[in-house]
C-alpha cells in the first residue's frame, strides 16, 4: 500500500502541490491528470524519490520515504516520459544492459519473456529501427526488470499508435490485477485514463485536487 499524507511542495515560495493525501492499494491503477504546469510531474518525481516534498509523509508498505529511500527505490519502477534507452543497442542488449545494473538477477529467457508478454518481439532489432510504440514498450519493460511493486509512468503512451497504446494498457491491467502491482499513470488522454484506471487524481494550478471514482466501486474520496 502507498500512503501519501498532507503532501506539499513549494519552489521559492511558489506552491506547486498543497496538502495532498491519498492511498493506493495493491492492484490499483490510478490516473494522475491535470493541466500543464499543475504539478503532475512534480508529484510523480516526489513519489519516485527524485524530489523531496516540502511537507508531508509518504509510506510504502510502512516504509517511510524519509528514512528508507534506498530500499524504497528497489520497489519502484519509474518510466520516464522521454525514452531512456540506448538507441544503438538491440532490444536484447538494452534488456541485458539494464539487467546487469538492476538489483534482481534475471536470465535471458526471463527478459525475453517480459518483452514477449508486452508483445515486443523484435528481440534482435536495434532500437533506432523500432516504431515509436515498440520503443515505448521497451521503455516500460526495462523499468520492470527488477520486479517493482509500485510502477510510476510519466505519459507512457504519448505519441504512439492506437494498437500499441491498447497493448500497453492491457499489459498494465494484467500487471495490476494479476500481479497486484500499484500503478500511477499520467496522461493527457482522458479516454485512455477512463478505460484503464480505477480512479483518477486530478490536480490543478489552484492547488486543489480531487479523486474521482471510475470503475472499481470505491467511493469518491475527496475534493
Amino acid at each position, binding site marked *: 500500500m502507498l500512503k501519501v499524507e498532507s503532501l506539499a511542495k513549494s519552489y521559492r515560495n511558489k506552491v506547486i502541490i498543497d496538502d495532498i493525501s491519498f492511498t493506493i492499494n495493491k492492484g490499483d491503477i490510478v490516473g494522475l491528470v491535470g493541466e500543464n504546469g499543475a504539478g503532475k510531474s512534480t508529484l510523480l518525481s516526489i513519489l519516485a524519490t527524485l524530489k523531496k516534498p516540502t511537507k508531508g509523509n509518504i509510506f510504502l508498505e510502512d516504509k517511510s520515504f524519509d528514512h528508507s529511500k534506498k530500499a524504497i*527505490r528497489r520497489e519502484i519502477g519509474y518510466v520516464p516520459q522521454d525514452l531512456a534507452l540506448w*538507441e544503438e543497442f538491440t532490444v536484447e542488449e538494452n534488456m541485458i544492459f539494464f539487467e546487469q545494473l538492476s538489483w534482481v538477477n534475471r536470465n535471458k529467457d526471463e527478459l525475453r519473456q517480459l518483452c514477449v508478454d508486452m508483445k515486443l518481439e523484435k528481440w534482435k532489432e536495434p532500437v533506432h529501427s523500432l516504431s515509436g510504440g515498440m520503443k515505448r514498450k521497451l521503455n516500460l519493460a526495462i523499468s520492470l526488470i*527488477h520486479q517493482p511493486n509500485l510502477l510510476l509512468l510519466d505519459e507512457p503512451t504519448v505519441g504512439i499508435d492506437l494498437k500499441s497504446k491498447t497493448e500497453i494498457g492491457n499489459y498494465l491491467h494484467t500487471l495490476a490485477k494479476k500481479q497486484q502491482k500499484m500503478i500511477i499513470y499520467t496522461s493527457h488522454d482522458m479516454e485512455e485514463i477512463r478505460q484503464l484506471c480505477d480512479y483518477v487524481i486530478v490536480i490543478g494550478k489552484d492547488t486543489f485536487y480531487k479523486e474521482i471514482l471510475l470503475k472499481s466501486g470505491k467511493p469518491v474520496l475527496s475534493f
Partner: protein
Amino acid sequence: MISIIRTRLIHWKKQPFSLLFWLILPILATLAIQYFTSAIQEDSKVPVGIVLEEDTELAMNLYLAIKENPLIRVYDVTEEEARRKVLSHKLDSAFVIEEGYEENVKKGSRNQIITSYKSDLSFAYTPVSQTIISLVQEDTGRSKAAYTVINLDNERSWTWEEIIQTANEIQKEENLLHTTFSYASSEEKKENQIRLWNSWGVWAIFSVLSALMLADWVIKEKRSSIKPRFPFIRFTYKWYYMGNLVPYTVLFLLIDLTAVMLFNLLLSETITSKLLLSMLSFRMMLQMGTFLFAYCFRNLYFYYILSFVLTLFVILISGVIIPMNSSWDVINPLNAFINQEVISGYLMLFTVLLIIWLMKGEKRNA
C-alpha cells in the same frame, strides 16, 4: 563491478573498430614515425666514395672508422669510378687511401697520404674531410706517441704494435666522446641506431591523444537519455563511472605491455622494471586525468577540439619533437615517464582530485 564491466563490453561490441584504432594508434604511429625518420636519416647520409689502395691493418681501420660514422654512407669504388661519380654528383666526394698509408703513418709523415675528389656541388666535403683528417691524425699521433714511448722506456722493450694495441684498448675503455647512454646490464647501442626522436616520447604523445579520444564515453554517458534510470539501479552514479574506468584501464595496460614487447622487438628498446613501473604510473595518470577532463564537458565536439589542442600543447612543451628549455618540465605531463620516474606531480594531483570528486556530492543518488 563485474556487472558494470559487462555493460561496458556491450558498448565495446558496438564500436570495435574505433576502439581498436585508438588503442593501437600509439603503437602504430610510433613505429611508423620511427621507421619513416630512420629511412629519411638513411637517405640524408652523405654519400662518400672510398678507394682503398692497400690492404694493411691501419688502412682497414681507417676505412671501418669512416664507415661507422652515422652521417656518412660509404661506397667502395675504384679511383676511376670515384672521379666519375663525383663529377656526375652521385657522390658528394671521394677519398683515396693511398698505397703506403700505413708506412707513412708509422713514419709520422702526414703529407698526401689521402687524396680527395670533390665537385662544385660537394656541400658536405668540408665536414667529411675534417672527419677523415681527424681520424688520420689520431693514427699518426698515436704512432708518434708510440715511438716516443719506445725511446723513453728503457726498462721494458715495447714494440710499436704493442703500444698501438694498448692505446686502442685504453681508448675503447675510456673513450668519452663516443660513449652512448645505456641502461645497466643492457647492450650498448651502436651510434648508427640512434634515432631522431625518442620512441617512448613519441608513444607517450599519441597515448595522450588516444586516452583523450577514448574518454569520450564519460560525456556520452553524462548526457545520455538513460540518465533518469540511474537512481533506480543498484550502483551510484559515481560508482558506475568508476566501474567503467576499470575495463578501459585494464585494456590500456594490456596494450601498453604489447607496446613494450613490440618496441623491444622492432626498435630495440630495452625492457626494464623502471620502464614498466613508470609506464604503469603514466597510464594511471592519463586515465584519471582524461576522465576528470572529460567530466568537465557536456559538448562532445568541443571536447574533441580541445583534446587535439591539448595534445598539440603537450607536443610543444614535452620536448619530444622540438627541443625545449627544461623550465617547461614542471608542467610537462610526459616528463616523469620520459625520465622513467614512477611518482609524478600530475599523478598525485589527479589522484587527489579524483578522491575529492568521488566524495563530493556522493549522497545525491544514494
